[in-house]
């Protein structure tokens, strides 16, 4: 079976299933609203220091949304059953994993597509393409890691505790480099190109590693 086709098929299946139930999108929308409200009332933001605070709010919201989005990719009961069924086919585990990762990433990007402009709108920071690019780059690597560990804890007890515990340490490099990139794009001191270069390096490294690890995690 063509692995590329398998991945696409799995991704479409997941997205279609999400479209039918529409459970995840409202949860992610909640994060966006929460991020905006808490940022406004929790911090003293005015036009001058918005660029300093908004990147932090952005990454906070993204990390939490990511944990929710990737956690759900493997957790539902029917997901487990269909995952086992898929593993019985000759399809490569990497392709199946890639498909689920792509679907979860798409949902997260949907969330970002609302969050980033909303932050820009409500707090007056520039809607910079540099910001968008950095966020997208970071999403790729974070998605690969998030999905791998979501698959890992799917059949383990205490998975709601374990997923953030395992995933956040691995996301730290992305938060650091991504945070720097967004700050630099918004005009704060920092080297945007270096930060983006780091993001690309991390993306390549972790996408390769998670692909290698996928079959050990998905296998029964």
């Amino acid at each position, binding site marked *: 079976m063509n692995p590329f086709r398998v991945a696409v098929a799995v991704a479409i299946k997941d997205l279609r299933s999400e479209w039918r139930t529409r459970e995840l999108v409202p949860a992610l929308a909640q994060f966006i609203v929460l991020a905006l409200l808490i940022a406004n009332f929790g911090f003293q933001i005015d036009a001058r220091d918005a660029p300093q605070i908004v990147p932090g709010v952005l990454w906070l919201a993204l990390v939490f949304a990511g944990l929710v989005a990737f956690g759900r990719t493997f957790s539902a009961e029917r997901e487990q059953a269909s995952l086992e069924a898929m593993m019985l086919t000759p399809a490569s585990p990497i392709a199946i994993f890639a498909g689920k990762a792509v679907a979860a990433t798409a949902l997260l990007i949907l969330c970002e597509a609302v969050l980033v402009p909303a932050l820009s709108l409500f707090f007056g920071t520039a809607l910079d393409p540099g910001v968008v690019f950095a966020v997208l780059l970071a999403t790729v690597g974070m998605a690969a890691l998030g999905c791998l560990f979501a698959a890992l804890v799917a059949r383990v007890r205490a998975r709601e505790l374990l997923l953030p515990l395992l995933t956040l340490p691995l996301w*730290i*490099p992305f938060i650091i480099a991504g945070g720097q990139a967004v700050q630099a794009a918004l005009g704060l001191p920092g080297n945007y190109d270096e930060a983006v270069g780091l993001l690309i390096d991390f993306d390549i490294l972790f996408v390769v590693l998670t692909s290698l690890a996928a079959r050990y995690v998905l296998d029964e």
Partner: protein
Amino acid sequence: MNRYRTWAALAVALMLGAGAAIYYAPTDYLQGVVQKIFYLHVSSAIAAYGCFAVVLVGSLVYLRNESAAADRFARSGAVVGVVFTTITLVMGSLWAKPIWGSFWTWDARLTSTLVLWIIYAGYLLVRRMADPGRQAARLAAVVGIFGFIDVPIVHFSVTWWRTQHPGPVVVNDALPPQMLATFLFTLACTLVLAAVLIGIRYRIETLLDARLRAIEPAPIVSAAPEAEPTA
């Protein structure tokens, strides 16, 4: 049992020797007696990294050929490694307070050591929460491998981040020869202690595994086809 007791006694004797060496080591001119925390603090950090290297190798070997021994080494290394990391963090914080003014700072070393602790605490949790046996071993192996790779990356990231915003803290690593000798001796003793602790833990895990196998239901073996009765 006796063999392990002997090794333990040796390790304890060595540590006492290291303690004496630390006691008689010269006092730092700038920092005073507090600086002596350095000897066991850094030795513990290095011992911890060594333990997690054991976890890495054990995990890789286990994923490759499902060797139970490799998995036991990984498990043992993780437990001992977390103990030494805890000691590193606590001693470091107690050293930081009088010297830097606060128990904690988010520089590269502290951050990556904290991340190290979190990752391998997660490793131990995964082992505890997953179905014992193959599932726990596999999943933990993945955690162990990713964790080991992540720590230098976090260290590098924070260092890079800090160079974007240079701060006033500069660490001077020059050591006078007497202090260096004391440190190397303490390090050697600590590594011996770590090895002994891993060895004991490995034996414990072997015995626990044997027990687990005794409780597990016997595997179903296909019956040999019965001979057809001749008419």
